[in-house]
């Protein structure tokens, strides 16, 4: 294990000198570990002391804090941003909870072996074997997935029972691969905050409100504008606190008697980490801006095992909002509209537009080895007045937005020729970011042909090219469409032969990344020998997910998070109090 030399601490011992050093140091160069001798730890000016120090105030952080507090521990939550909630605040906060209480009450069976087969098939499709004792998963992946099955429901029940997260059951929310025979409970695992709107899109705001209200009610302390940059270890290598850079550039140290639990985010907004770990050309994403992979950088000094760094929770985004770093941007969970298609730079359809977001996004990253290019790096969504009138929404990242909404990503023209010209101009504006992509010279005629072909499919309700609307998850995020009597496929309707027409540029993004230090099933961060680093925990997108590249279902980000928050808090509670 790499340790900072102890004389570094001594050289910074005077407060004035320390603050001066902290001010001139860049944040990035300060990341790491600070090892204190017992004497130093005893005499150091920790500004505060708690049993459990939680880093991050999204779902992982707040639920870790609450579960810890309900054991009787004193708890502080440190948030790097000015306001609480992280990426969770922006989410719809569906949480996928296997074998949950309301599904059991409704008679929906969710046997554990089938659940594990379902997640195994999606997580490691190349190794999946229903006859293998772990269905092709590694022991670690299997154990982590089993922990999700075992603990997500008790965690959800406790959060609800304590009034921190009352829920409502969403029996119709289908899994993204419900057609798999392994998926015995094809829908019923999704819970959502009880007070959310009918569309459920505001679930994150509701959850952050109810979770943080409960936390404040129950005496959890909050400190915003605190960017944790170092973990403080004692000479035995046990975590005894953190050092944070405050937003006024001062540095504080906070002691953790029992444990530090990281519930911070991934590295969506650190371009260097992104380009060195992700193998896909994403344009940022809708994670909170503060998700810059701080735990990845901090833990480099700890000898951890980074896992699943090559995967992310993927989602298409409106390219222009992603490039502009629009703070309110949502991932395009819902590709809205029925009289709507995506086309490529040639003007041709290349994908089922209603494929769930994690899978749809991967089309954008397809590589053409002969041309050495990403041919679908930017796709173009095209729709007509009908979809504009009946499918516009402010929810779920829809590119089709209602009047009064931020619509600067929308291109409009009375004719397809005019639309093509304007699309070309937009692409030119971003040339240096999109591999100098240009529309093909025959784009407009190809687009016209694509629309004629699509309209033929729409007329009979069957997409012979890409089978749009044939899977239950295609329909789940279809969004509002104009009612049409006797229609068999609600995702399809002919695009008008007359304008106006609309378009938006679509790029690839992340909800957040899902790689980081490997933990065990109790959220303990492991060293290179698979031994827990005493007192150090991680939950959520800052640590390694056992899902590989899979997105099992809506809420399969947050459901596992509450399971591991619950398990981490239970384990941290029984840690000895350290000096």
């Amino acid at each position, binding site marked *: 294990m790499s340790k900072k030399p102890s004389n570094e601490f001594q050289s910074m011992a005077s407060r004035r000198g320390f603050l001066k050093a902290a001010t001139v140091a860049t944040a990035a160069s300060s990341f790491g570990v600070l090892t204190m001798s017992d004497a130093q730890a005893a005499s150091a000016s920790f500004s505060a002391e708690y049993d459990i120090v939680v880093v991050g105030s999204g779902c992982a952080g707040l639920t870790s804090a609450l579960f810890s507090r309900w054991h009787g521990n004193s708890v502080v939550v440190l948030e790097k941003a*000015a306001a*609480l909630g992280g990426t969770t*605040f922006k989410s719809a906060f569906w949480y996928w909870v296997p074998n949950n209480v309301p599904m059991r009450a409704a008679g929906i069976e969710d046997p554990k072996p089938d659940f594990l087969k379902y997640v195994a098939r999606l997580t490691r499709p190349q190794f999946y074997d229903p006859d293998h004792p772990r269905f092709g998963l590694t022991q670690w992946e299997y154990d982590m997935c089993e922990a999700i099955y075992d603990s997500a429901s008790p965690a959800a029940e406790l959060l609800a029972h304590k009034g921190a997260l009352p829920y409502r059951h969403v029996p119709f929310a289908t899994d993204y691969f419900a057609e798999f025979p392994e998926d015995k409970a094809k829908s019923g695992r999704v819970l959502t905050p009880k007070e959310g709107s009918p569309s459920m899109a505001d679930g994150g*705001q509701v959850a952050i*409100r109810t979770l943080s209200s409960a936390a404040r009610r129950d005496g959890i302390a909050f400190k915003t504008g605190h960017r944790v940059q170092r973990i403080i270890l004692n000479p035995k290598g046990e975590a005894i606190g953190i050092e944070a850079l405050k*937003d006024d550039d001062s540095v504080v140290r906070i002691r953790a008697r029992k444990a530090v639990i990281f519930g911070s985010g991934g590295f969506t907004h650190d371009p260097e980490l992104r380009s060195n770990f992700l193998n896909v050309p994403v344009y940022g994403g809708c994670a909170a*801006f503060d998700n810059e992979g701080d735990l990845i950088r901090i833990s480099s000094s700890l000898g951890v095992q980074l896992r699943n760094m090559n995967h992310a929770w993927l989602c298409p985004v409106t390219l222009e909002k992603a490039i*502009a770093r629009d703070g309110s941007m949502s991932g395009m969970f819902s590709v809205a509209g029925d009289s709507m298609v995506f086309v490529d730079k040639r003007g041709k359809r290349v994908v089922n537009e209603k494929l769930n977001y994690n899978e749809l996004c991967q089309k954008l990253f397809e590589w053409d080895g002969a041309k050495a290019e990403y041919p679908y790096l930017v796709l173009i969504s095209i729709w007509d007045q009908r979809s504009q009138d009946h499918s516009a929404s402010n929810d779920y990242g829809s590119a089709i937005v209602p009047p009064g*909404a*931020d619509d600067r990503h929308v291109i409009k023209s009375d004719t397809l020729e005019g639309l093509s010209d304007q699309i070309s101009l937009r692409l030119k504006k971003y040339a240096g970011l999109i591999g100098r992509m240009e529309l093909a010279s025959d784009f407009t005629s190809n687009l016209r042909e694509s629309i004629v072909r699509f309209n033929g499919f729409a007329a009979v309700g069957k997409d012979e090219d890409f089978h749009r609307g044939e899977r239950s998850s295609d329909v789940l995020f279809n969004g509002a469409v104009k009612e049409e009597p006797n229609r068999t496929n609600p995702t399809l309707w002919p695009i008008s032969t007359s304008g106006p027409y609309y378009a938006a540029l679509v790029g690839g993004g992340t909800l957040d990344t899902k790689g980081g230090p490997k933990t065990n099933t109790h959220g303990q961060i492991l060293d290179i020998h698979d031994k827990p680093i005493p007192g150090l925990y991680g939950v959520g997108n800052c640590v390694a997910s056992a899902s590989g590249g899979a997105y099992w279902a809506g809420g399969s980000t947050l459901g596992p998070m509450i399971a591991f928050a619950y398990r981490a808090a239970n384990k941290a509670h029984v840690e000895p109090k350290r000096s």
Partner: protein
Amino acid sequence: MSYVKTSLMLFCFLGGVSITRYALSAELSSDALKTLAVKQCSQCHTFGQGEGPGFGPNLFGIIGKKAGSAQGFKYSPGFLAVMSGKTWDPKLLDRWLTDTQALVPGTGMTYFQDDPATRKKLIQFFKLLQ
């Protein structure tokens, strides 16, 4: 209008205000106020004139504006029940920023700023934002 252009305009706009209309002390320069406001608010709010809402309403010209009146933003019934008829002035904004949930329990915005100096700076920024 492009995002890049708008950001640039916002930058110029705020910069221009500081030079021409307001003589601010060094510790409260408009740049510093803007930096603070962006850090505190821009995850959810837009600042530019005519910009659409984000997760929260656009904040251009908020001082002197009726609460619940920003264009294109759907306010919660709880917010409107408590705040309708009120006008955003520095005193009301200070109460709001101290603890949104205390002023309007159940509102979509969860924000509490217990540092009076930070609240004061944010309100000063909003005064420039018109």
